[in-house]
């Protein structure tokens, strides 16, 4: 019994569920005072200190600011190795960290245009939760 309880706790069901707006829809915040767009979501605007922040849905396009290929992954990501994690400058301003997908290691460049897609981020074993969320890939069209 104790083992089972631990397992459910380690899946962090509530935390994953709370992050759905960010992960599925790229919803962050727009500051009503200074107009800056924020991602991920925050309570206080880091630019002007205002607490008047409204939900804002990002368009999901940007460019690669820097990137790194991962060979020694954290637990839960072993199956994807090697994979590339990038810092992406969204068109609306914020820098976000995300895994790249549908790329080959040799095909990634700084400044490359990328777009958000929803993919499997990880799963908690064959019996556990599957976590979905944003990754980025080279823009297919337009």
């Amino acid at each position, binding site marked *: 019994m104790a083992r089972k309880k631990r397992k459910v706790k380690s899946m962090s069901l509530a935390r994953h569920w709370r992050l759905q707006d960010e992960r599925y829809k790229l919803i962050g915040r727009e500051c009503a005072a200074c107009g800056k767009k924020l991602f991920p979501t925050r309570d206080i605007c880091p630019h002007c200190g205002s607490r008047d922040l409204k939900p804002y849905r990002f368009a999901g396009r940007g460019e690669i600011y820097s990137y790194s290929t991962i060979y020694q992954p954290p637990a839960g990501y072993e199956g994807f190795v090697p994979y590339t994690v990038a810092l992406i400058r969204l068109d609306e301003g914020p820098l976000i960290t995300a895994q790249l997908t*549908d790329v080959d290691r040799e095909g990634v460049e700084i400044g490359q245009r990328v777009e958000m*897609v929803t993919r*499997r981020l990880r799963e908690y074993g064959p019996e556990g939760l599957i976590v979905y969320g944003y990754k980025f890939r080279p823009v297919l069209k337009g």
Partner: protein
Amino acid sequence: MKPNREVGIIGYGAYIPRYRIRADEILRVWKSIDSIHLEEKSVPGLDEDTITMAIEAARNALKRAAIDPQEIGAVWVGSESKPYAVKPTATIVAEALGATPHTNAADWEFACKAGTEAMQAAIGFVGSGMAKYALAIGVDTAQGRPGDQLEYTASAGGAAFIIGPKEESLAYLEGSYSYVSDTPDFFRRPHQYYPQHGHRFTGEPAYFKHTYCAAQHLMEELGYTPRDYAMVVFHQPNSKFPRRVAQRLGFTEEQLKPGFLVEVIGNAYAGSSPLGFAAALDEAQPGDRILLVSFGSGAGSDALTFTATEQIVKNDDTLLRVRDYISRRREIDYGTYCRYRDNLNNH
């Protein structure tokens, strides 16, 4: 069949994963068939499944329809490769699209015709006035046992259709017809990873009987013959079956060609005829009439007739077409394929 209130497709979109394995590469490993009738098939990446593919197809449909996702009254996904045995695929798709919480969501099942099943239901839902728009998706990451004949064709992909009022449609429904019987041609029991199929039994009593009868009855009901159609799309389990039934019904190779994708992407099961239909819509001109005929083992066929309107022509270069996904391809070898399909675990 047709609802009292006229309906049509107001947006559609497709998705095919990037990876391809060539049929001759599978043959190199297994040497299990004597001749190959297709070039290659699509393979999902490590982070892809029915849910992620449904989301991208539906986002493409939403972009084309240019509607607020909150106006979608139903999100229905037809598939036989659900990532969860219990927990709907449709709620995750609906959440990702921004259609929740004031909507209906459910998964549909009928082997390879689950997608057109969801379309039929969406037609009824919108046609009865219960929803302004309804989203129907046919999508699969198909399973075939390594070395089995099915391994040469079982692929991945899908297409999404937003049903709405005829006035807003890019193709309106003229009628539909369904034809089913208890036929044990192909099945998978619970907790089994791969399906069983009845080899030669899958042809005449299953595929041909149901597709032929559904198509024939629908054309009779509508007063049409094959000459009244610009294009025809059948479920595509291989390259022979759809060609043969098209010929028997009196359709030409030219009518079949726009939606005939099996040779380059394989059989995406519940995504197969919906993807072919999306490819046909990509080519359609106003006034073009299209016959869509699905097939699901077990067995049954849905036949639907749509006619394209002036709104089929969209001069938007950012809209992704089926051919864009077909030409986006990265070839993999059999070893990589085994890794991507998790075939190294003993199923």
